[in-house]
């Protein structure tokens, strides 16, 4: 197995073998990211493909300060967001909700099957899905999300709260989670 440095060097010289090695190294992880953001598998594959095109094109700009995986992941997420951003900004959120409108319950998450969870996330409306992924999984703040998606912070909060509520309701309806307590957790 060649070192990452050699693979990157090969990619910079436009060598197809090195490009394939880099792709093989990260494809599964990045496809996992794409599946969370995309509406279906076909869209996810589109995002993965477009993302890797950008990776190969912009690889010369990669500064070795952070990890290559993190850099590629950011590109993949940006590609996914770009794909759906127009749809998000065009949609009007009817009611503004705060987190507190959808109180968090104590839920047993341990037995949730990952594939089923992904399917449920993909069934969320696009604006909820994107905001949910960016906030709950990637760890962006609402301010950062509002800047990236060109929506207000309140819309981002509201979308996230609704996404989380819908997610739990769907998990509950599918009998994939159980409440450990009736108590509200603030």
């Amino acid at each position: 197995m060649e070192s990452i440095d050699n693979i990157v060097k090969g990619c910079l010289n436009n060598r197809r073998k090195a490009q394939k090695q880099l792709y093989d190294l990260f494809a599964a992880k990045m496809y996992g990211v794409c599946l969370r953001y995309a509406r279906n598998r076909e869209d996810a594959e589109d995002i993965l493909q477009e993302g890797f095109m950008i990776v190969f094109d912009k690889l010369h700009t990669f500064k070795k300060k952070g990890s290559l995986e993190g850099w590629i992941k950011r590109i993949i997420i940006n590609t996914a967001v770009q794909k759906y951003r127009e749809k998000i900004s065009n949609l009007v959120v009817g009611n503004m909700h705060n987190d507190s409108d959808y109180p968090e319950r104590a839920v047993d998450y341990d037995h949730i099957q990952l594939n089923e969870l992904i399917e449920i996330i993909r069934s969320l409306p696009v604006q909820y899905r994107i905001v949910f992924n960016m906030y709950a999984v990637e760890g962006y703040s609402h301010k950062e999300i509002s800047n990236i998606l060109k929506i207000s912070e309140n819309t981002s909060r509201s979308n996230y709260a609704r996404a989380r509520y819908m997610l739990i309701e769907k998990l509950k309806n599918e009998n994939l989670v159980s409440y450990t307590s009736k108590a509200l957790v603030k």
Partner: protein
Amino acid sequence: MRKKDIFENNIGEKLRNFQSQPSSRVWKELEAGLDNTRKLSRQRYIKYAAAIILLLATAWGIYEALVYIGTPHDQVADVFSPKPSENVEISEKTKPDIISEKEVPDIYQEITVSEIEDTDFFLPVKQEKDKKKIAAHVIDSLKPVMHEEEFVSDIFETSLAGYSIIKTTDDITISGVELKQPAVYARSISEQDPYFDDIPERNRWSVGIKIAPQYAFRINSSEPEVLYRGKAIFEQNEKHLYTYNLGIDVKYQLSNKISLESGLQYIRMGQSIRNINIYHHPGNESPFGILPAHVNHPQSVLTSMGEIHFTDPTLYFDDISAHRVLTLEEVNEPDDVLLERGDRLNQHLGFLEVPLTIRYNLYDGLVKIQLKGGVGFNYLVNNSVVLQREGFRNSIGTTSLIRNWNSSITGGVALQVPVTDKLNFYIEPSANLFISSMTYGREYNVYPYGISLYTGLGYAF
């Protein structure tokens, strides 16, 4: 990094580590896209080179025009515009003793040219027939003093600027005076000369009308890394369209070789969208007719030239090839009244264009042949999506994210055939290409182009 709650820690952590293997299709298409990038890079360089050549040609044309404008035309030396390198000497004006004053009162000026073949005269003669008239006059003037066999062997060129030019190509003797060849003579022709009465003033201006059928399509030069599959889908499902252009033009002739043209014309660009099935859904039809539902029609169609939004709420669409139909909210299932299958959805974009064109005369005979090239400034005045069915054409929507202002380059060949002294008929095979992307705020760069065959009439004055 902000603090995460229990939900994020549990669900988020699970999702962060989620992996799945994509299908082999992804790498295959990625590889094809990488190959395509190389091809596109080459195409980009060719495009830049073509643009530079066109700019240089335009700059050269303007330079030539400016040089001509700045050149006085009231002296023989200026009429000839000899270049220093050509080693042309113009002698002092002298009365030639080769022709008696009585018979030919004009003054001849001899020019000694070391290499006649290299001489590049720049003569402001507009009409070929004018040259012939003056040439005939020169011959008539000389005939009485010469024998036929001694006659000047070649009428080389004539000028309307008060001089006629003759060239000898053999040694000749006229009235006992030996003329060695090769030599060039200029002879002034006075305005009282009877032959000038019939010579019309030179017409520099002309106005015209023109119309052209056009093959219209677009170049989708989106970088494959931006939207490779999207591009492929558009290429498979979008086709050219036959449209038309029409307009008026004004031309000004700067010199024998160069003229400038401007005007105003309507050009219609567009493309045909294929593989969209169209259904009639009367559920939204009001008893008072179709409601203006452009704000709440739930569907739109993605195309390389922007996103189509619909104004007719009774129509629904289904993409039978890809996923170009976007549904923004819940749609009632159509009643499956299929109106059209396939290829009857046309995007039309009409622009008012102000062209600025330079024409260069390649051939100036009975028929004139010109090369033309220039730029155009276009303003969007018509944006419609047309559904064709059962012999009807219905405008059912518009395309969003189209720039109001664009610029284009144009080039072609023009054939000018005289109908009368003042009226000319034109045939002009031309091509134009938008040089700024027609859409904005999108990942795609789309450059419409048209190949057209103009026909028109021009009136000179």
